Each structure stands twice: as structure tokens, then as C-alpha cells.
């Protein structure tokens, strides 16, 4: 079974600075998807970014980028120019790629990000 680990339960960053959230995972599959979801106080789950394991290029979405290290099974999220609205719980998630595998999302325990003005 796949597992996702977020070892830092909380982090804080100053507004306009850069912060990196770490995530590691364990799987025996060669192809899969990885995601970062954001959950603000409203509790809505918002997709931030995704990475296909077969792609070597790291995904980027505006101020959000990932550092995907497949061999190390590491998938970190970098937030640049942090804004107050980035304050939220961040969940790293794994999903199998192949049709025969489960398409459910397996989440890490989450990390609470505080942004200080």
C-alpha cells in the first residue's frame, strides 16, 4: 500500500518570502500522480499543483512549483512571494496512474502554513 508522509506539522513564513513544504511517499509502482491540495479555514479542498511521475520536468503554476525527486520519492512544494491568502493546511497526495490501480487519493497528514505580515 502507498503511504505519504509530511514530517513537518507546522511552518511559518513572512509575507513575500519563499517557503518549501516537504513530502515523501512510498510506493512500488513506477507510474503515478502526485498532488498538493490546499485547505484554507473554509475547509474547501483546492488543487494547487500536480505532477505525473513519468515527467522529469517539475510542474509549475504561477508562484507554486514542485521539486520532484523520483528516486528519492520526494515531492516538495515551493511557494514564492508568499501572500496572506496562502495561509492554510497543505496536503500532499498520491494517486495510482494505471487503470488497474486504485484511483483514490492517499493523503499525508497535512501541514499548517502560517503567513506573517
Amino acid at each position: 500500500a502507498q503511504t505519504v508522509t509530511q514530517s513537518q506539522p507546522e511552518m511559518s513564513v513572512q509575507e513575500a518570502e519563499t517557503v518549501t513544504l516537504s513530502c515523501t511517499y512510498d510506493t512500488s509502482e513506477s507510474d503515478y500522480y502526485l498532488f498538493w491540495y490546499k485547505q484554507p479555514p473554509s475547509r474547501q479542498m483546492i488543487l494547487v499543483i500536480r505532477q505525473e511521475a513519468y515527467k522529469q520536468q517539475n510542474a509549475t503554476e504561477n508562484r507554486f512549483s514542485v521539486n520532484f525527486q523520483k528516486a528519492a520519492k520526494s515531492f516538495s512544494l515551493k511557494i514564492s512571494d508568499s501572500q496572506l491568502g496562502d495561509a492554510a493546511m497543505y496536503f500532499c497526495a498520491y494517486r495510482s496512474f494505471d487503470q488497474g490501480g486504485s484511483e483514490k487519493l492517499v493523503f499525508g497528514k497535512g501541514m499548517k502554513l502560517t503567513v506573517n505580515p
Partner: protein
Amino acid sequence: AAGVIQSPRHLIKEKRETATLKCYPIPRHDTVYWYQQGPGQDPQFLISFYEKMQSDKGSIPDRFSAQQFSDYHSELNMSSLELGDSALYFCASSRHTGTSSYEQYFGPGTRLTVT
């Protein structure tokens, strides 16, 4: 853009009662997933449906059942409610293209409180 709709948004039930949660996926999405998020916890997968057939099953209690209807909306039925069922229940939807589906988009959740 249209999003996943869940109803009701809040529900208060007593122990041993029954609850029904509804989910309306994004138009043209054919797959629905249900997750349960307890207080301070990460979302846990319960069950999923693709083209009205159950496609995967997670840690869903036998007291719970679900189905997907011909219009692709889904309902999660919960019976003999227990205090521990108090949680935020998310529905997510996705669309299969080719042999695999992509991102799952979450609804706002239904907050169930069992007293």
C-alpha cells in the same frame, strides 16, 4: 466554471439516526469519490463510482452505502449513526479520458454532526 455541489452543507443528527448526503459532480464528469475528514485529520477515502458502478472501496463502514445515479449524481447513505461519524464528508469528481482519469475536484463538503 461549474463546481461540485454537495447538499446539505451542514447536518445535525442524533445517534442511531440515518443521514443521506448528496453530490452533484461537475458536468461531464463520470467518476465520483467520497472522502471522510475527521477533526484535525487528513481525508480518508470511502468509496468511488465510475459510470454508475462501484469502482473502488476504502474504509467505509458496513452501516454506510452509496450509489451513483443515471444523471451521475451520487448519494451516501449513513445509518445507525455514531458519535464518531461526526466529520466533514467530501465528494470529488473527475473525468476519464483514455484509460485514466485526472485531477479530482472537491466539493465544499457536508459537515455532519452526530449528537
